[in-house]
Every structure is written in structure tokens, then in C-alpha cells.
């Protein structure tokens, strides 16, 4: 626990602190640019890009070895990764534009073929004498243990750059993500902004390779926006929340994994993000599952309340246990099921409101008003007191109900 506190407070060593900062920045950047992807409904394109990095990494390694290096220069490997991810992205777009295949098929094809080719290259590297200790497999799931100082600096600086770019480009990107047609009408260069968005995603994918690995990096791009979607309907807030979720996952995950050797960074970060998602799925106000269940219960109660009152007014027997319970709880009936004075008054009112609605729907042509009749909306919310008085005049004087 003390180790975790140290790591959270960035006291667990210089490298660990840099990695934690890098992971936090990466999480923020991934959360926000993932939101743009999510709104553009292109979330899984990033999966194709991430898998497409593998042959690039392997080729970069082979090239560097070919030039006499040891092939472990992280910047060089990431450059290769970025180049082949770009080719993968281009191919997905090309297939969608020039053939009848849908985007999901294009994504799946690029993902599996590039990854397969990357694995072929990895086995080639394994057969080389010098490649035995290459450790390229670390890019599959990310690995921060034993990371060199310069690599940690690269991650931290890369993360900071991406976040800065997002802050600069957030307004045009929000417009394009939310409504590309409107953005085009405003004169924004939609194509180039889309390109910038994919460029950011590419940068995040490449930086994330070292931390989270190419299989799981898309989790950082997808889970935070989906989580944020539960909490708000506004794009600006969604960006903020997604950034916070991603940042928190990156920060806590990197800190937690620095405390023990058998806590791999990537999976921990993803699982923390997934935990935040699960919390939101169940407990978010309005869009969460719990809120939906409660809203359903309230709706059900209102329907039973109204049906119960109308039955009281018409002196019909009530058998439904839920209706009886609701009426009893509100004091409309006594425990033995006989209506109280209050219940009779409410019943008379609800029956009268029904008659008022009948009149209203007969004499009003405005369906925007009469269309709101659903049996639950109080008539006072729809019509003015004058109008209701007019309906009352047509109905006649109140009649006593429920009295034997």
C-alpha cells in the first residue's frame, strides 16, 4: 500500500514518475480524441490502425539492424509503427470507397492481414541471431518495466504534445464530429479536420504501443467516450469527462502497475477504465441502468395511480395488488379498500380531468396540445385556467361520485 501511495505521489522513482505522467497525458489525449472518433462512429477504425503497426515495428527493426544498429531504438520503431498504421488506415478508406465492402469488413481484413504479416516478420526476426533479445513482443501488450529513461521521456513529451494539439483543435473537431454537414456549410475544411483527427489517433496509438500495447490501445480510445456518453448529452462536457476518465485510468493504472511486477501496465489501465465504465453503466443519472429502472417504476406507479383513481370514481372493484398498495400508501383508500374522503376527492378530480380532456380533444384542432393526452400529463400543464373553465362550463356542475 505504501508502494502504491509512493507511485501515486510520483515518488516511486524518476522513470516510474515519467511513465505515470505519460500514461495520464496519453489517457487524457486518448479519451478526448476517442470522443471525436466515437461521434464519427469510427471507433473500430482505430483497432485496424493499432494492429497494422506490427509489421511496421518489425520492418523498422530489420532496417535498423540492417544498418548495423541494435534495432532497439524506440523512436525508430515507433516511426515504423506510425508509417504502417497510416498505410493500414489508407487501405481501410480505400476499400470502403472503391469496393462494395462495408467498413467493418475492411477493418477486419486490414487488421488480420497486417497483424498476420507482422507475425511472419516477428518469426523472421526470431530466427536472426541478433533478434533473439529484441523484445518486440512487448509491443503486443505494452511493457513499462525496464523501460529506458529516454523512452519514458519520449512518452511524456509525446503525450503532452498530443494533449496540446487537441486543446488547439478542439473547436473545429467538435463541429465536424457532431455535424459534418453543418461544419462544411460554415466553410470549415472537413476533409482536413478529419485527417487531423485521424492523425491524432495515430499519434496516440503509436505512443500507446509502449504503455498499453497494440491489442489494448483501442480500449483507451473507446471506453472513456462511451463512459462519458452516460453522463451528458453535450459534446463539450463529453470531451471533458472522457478526458478525465482516460486520464484517471492512465494515472491510476500506471501507478498501480509500478507497485508490483506481476501487474502489467496495459491491462491494469484498461481494467480501471472498464471499471469506471461499469459504474457509469449502472449508476449514471438518466442514462444509467439504475436510473432507467427507477424511471420505469415511477411511470408504472403513475399509471396504476391514475387507473386506481378512475376505478374509485366509477365505483369499480380494484383487484390489482400494486394499484391497491399505491392507493393505500397515498391515503386514498383505507386498509380495507374503502375510499377515504381524500381518495374520493382525488378520484372525482381525475374523472373530471378525463371529461375535460374529452371536451378538449373534441373542440381543439391543435394536435400539438391535444396530442399531449397520454392519461398521465395533468391537464393544467397543457391548457390555461381560462380554457379549463371553458371545458368545465361545457361539462356542467360537479357530480358527487363514490357515494352510495
Amino acid at each position, binding site marked *: 500500500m505504501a508502494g502504491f501511495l509512493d507511485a501515486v505521489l510520483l515518488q516511486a522513482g524518476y522513470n516510474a514518475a515519467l511513465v505515470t505522467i505519460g500514461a495520464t497525458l496519453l489517457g487524457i489525449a486518448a479519451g478526448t480524441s476517442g470522443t471525436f472518433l466515437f461521434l464519427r462512429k469510427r471507433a473500430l477504425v482505430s483497432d485496424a490502425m493499432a494492429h497494422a503497426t506490427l509489421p511496421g515495428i518489425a520492418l523498422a527493426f530489420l532496417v535498423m539492424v540492417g544498418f548495423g544498429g541494435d534495432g532497439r531504438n524506440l523512436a525508430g520503431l515507433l516511426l515504423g509503427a506510425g508509417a504502417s498504421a497510416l498505410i493500414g488506415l489508407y487501405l481501410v478508406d480505400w476499400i470502403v470507397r472503391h469496393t462494395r465492402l462495408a467498413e467493418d469488413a475492411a477493418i477486419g*481484413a486490414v487488421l488480420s492481414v497486417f497483424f498476420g*504479416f507482422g507475425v*511472419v516478420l516477428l518469426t523472421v526476426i526470431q530466427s536472426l541471431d541478433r533478434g533473439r533479445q529484441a523484445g518486440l513482443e512487448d509491443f503486443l*501488450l505494452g511493457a513499462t518495466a525496464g523501460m529506458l529513461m529516454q523512452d519514458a521521456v519520449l512518452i511524456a513529451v509525446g503525450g503532452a504534445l498530443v494533449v496540446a494539439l487537441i486543446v488547439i483543435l478542439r473547436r473545429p473537431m467538435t463541429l465536424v464530429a457532431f455535424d459534418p454537414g453543418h461544419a462544411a456549410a460554415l466553410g470549415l475544411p472537413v476533409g482536413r479536420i478529419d485527417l487531423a483527427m485521424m492523425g491524432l489517433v495515430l499519434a496516440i496509438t503509436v505512443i500507446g504501443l509502449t504503455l498499453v500495447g497494440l*491489442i489494448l490501445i483501442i480500449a483507451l480510445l473507446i471506453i472513456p467516450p462511451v463512459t462519458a456518453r452516460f453522463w451528458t448529452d453535450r459534446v463539450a462536457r463529453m470531451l471533458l469527462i472522457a478526458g478525465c476518465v482516460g486520464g484517471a485510468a492512465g494515472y491510476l493504472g500506471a501507478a498501480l502497475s509500478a507497485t508490483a511486477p506481476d501487474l502489467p501496465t496495459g491491462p491494469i489501465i484498461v*481494467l480501471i477504465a472498464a471499471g469506471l465504465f461499469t459504474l457509469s453503466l449502472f449508476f449514471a443519472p438518466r442514462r444509467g*441502468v439504475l436510473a432507467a429502472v427507477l424511471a420505469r417504476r415511477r411511470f408504472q406507479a403513475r399509471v396504476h395511480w391514475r387507473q386506481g383513481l378512475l376505478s374509485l370514481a366509477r365505483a369499480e372493484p380494484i383487484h390489482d395488488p400494486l394499484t391497491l398498495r399505491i392507493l393505500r400508501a397515498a391515503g386514498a383508500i383505507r386498509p380495507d379498500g374503502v375510499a377515504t374522503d381524500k381518495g374520493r376527492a382525488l378520484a372525482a378530480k381525475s374523472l373530471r380531468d378525463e371529461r375535460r380532456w374529452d371536451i378538449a380533444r373534441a373542440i381543439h384542432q391543435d394536435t400539438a396540445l391535444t396530442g399531449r393526452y397520454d392519461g398521465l400529463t395533468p391537464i393544467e400543464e397543457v391548457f390555461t385556467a381560462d380554457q379549463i373553465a371553458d371545458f368545465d362550463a361545457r361539462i356542467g356542475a360537479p357530480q358527487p361520485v363514490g357515494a352510495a
Partner: protein
Amino acid sequence: MGAEFVQFSLTPMLIGVLAAIACALPGNFLILRRQALIGDAISHVVLPGIVVAFLVTGTVATMPMLIGAGGAALVAVVLIEAIRRLGRIEPGAAMGVVFTALFAGGVLLLEQSDTSRVHLDVDHALMGNLETLIWLRASGWASVIDPVALAHLPPELPRIAIVAALMAALTVIFWRPLKLATFDEGFARAIGLPVSAIGLALVIAAAVAAVAAFDAVGSIIVIAMFICPPATARLMTDRLATQVWLSLAVAAVSAILGYVLAGYGPIWLGFDSSVSAAGMIATISGVMLAIACLWGRARGRVTPVA
């Protein structure tokens, strides 16, 4: 093509071909229904499934692993559907959330548990071990009819053969409802077909194929074979029956050519070791798809009338 071929290449090739066919068959319908990435999602969640199965049973026996993988696939499908409905999230994003979270869980469990003494790791799950599925008891082509040698076939072969046959049988039996539900869901519903049940059954069939194939060949081939052969075939014809046959041909050719190139290609080029067969099979299927993308007769949205 003598005894050595039968011993070392015949069974891996057959397993590769059968796995490719088992995946390509449901893949045809998944592609048309724009659910191609279900295969991707399923092959990722197989890992947590086998890890949990290992932790529960403590062995690497095949049956618990297959059950675990199948269970995980089912859990993933249910979760994706639940998140899509409960959270009103688009299916792609729901899928991304579920399979990455489950995969991460699988990796973490693997790291936390003592699996060093058994052959269970992420690389294996991804890349399979097609090259090791050899038939040592065979002594030549005569062994194909020798019951003693046949009893020592790698167990993956009969297993994947059964699953491939099952996929073929299901495709034939449910051909008409599948076709209707795929191309015109409204009409299918109107004539009383259980459209949602058909959709779910297709996904479950795909999961069964993925799990069985995964066991033998790893997830790369599974994803590639779900998508590339049917996509290639789709660019060559407008008729569903032709597309399915073509996809089977593409799958088989990819598997054979990929295996041969992986095993012998480097030797022809003067290297002394082979490369990953699974990766090469996926690569070949990609090359075939690329050819179809460039020159397939029906590659455009509107097919020219021949």
C-alpha cells in the same frame, strides 16, 4: 511427397484448411450482415475463457479449455448486446468496450497465476501452433488407411473436422432462412421467420467455429478467415451460393499456400528456418483479397452485366 510429407505437413495442412473453411462459412453471412467484427471480438475473449478454465480445473486439458472459451464467447455476445441496449451505444463501440476489457482481464489473470509450467501464454493464443500438429506415427501414405496410425492423429484434426462439417450442415439446412434474414430482414419477419433468433444462432455458430479453430491455429487465422475469403468472394460474384463456394476455395487455397510458403519459402530463399504458418496464411488471404479488390468482377457497388 513421401513419408515425411505425411508425417509433418499433411495434418497441419488439413487442420489449416478445415479451420479456414469452418470460419469462412459463417463469415459469409457475417460480412453481408455487417457483423464482420464479431469474429474479431470473439477471438479476443477466447483468452480470458481459457485462462479461467485453467484456473478452475488446474489443467490444460482440451475440453475444459474449449468450454471456457465457448462460455467466454457467449458472455461477450450477451454483454455486447446488453450494453448496446441498456446504454443505447452503437454496436461497434459496445463491442470495443467488451472485448478489450475481457482481454485485459485475461492477460491480468494470466500474469497473476502461476502458468509458467504450462504452455499457456498470449503469444500462443494469438499465433497458434499449427506447425506442431504433426502425425509422428504415420510412416507414409499407407498410414491413411492404417487404423493404428490413425488412432494417433493429432486430436485437433477430428475436432476441427467435426466443427467444419457442422458448419457445412448448418449452412445447408438453414440456407433459405439465413439468406432471407440476411438480405431482407423485413420480408423474413413478415413471413414469420424468427429473425432475431437466426441472428443470435449465427453469432453462436461463429463462436463455435472460432473456438474450435482457435484451439488449433490461433486467433490470427480465425479473424482473417472470418473476413478475407468471404470478402474476396463477395467482390467476385453477386450470387450468394457462388460466393459461399468461392469463399471456401479462397480459404482452402490460403491455408495450403500459406502453410507451404511458411514452411518451405524461407528454405527456397536460402534461410534455414521457417516462419509463422498462421501469419503466412493470413497474409496470403490478404493478398487474394487485394487482387479481388483491384480486379474482382463485382468489386464495385453496381455489378456490370456480363
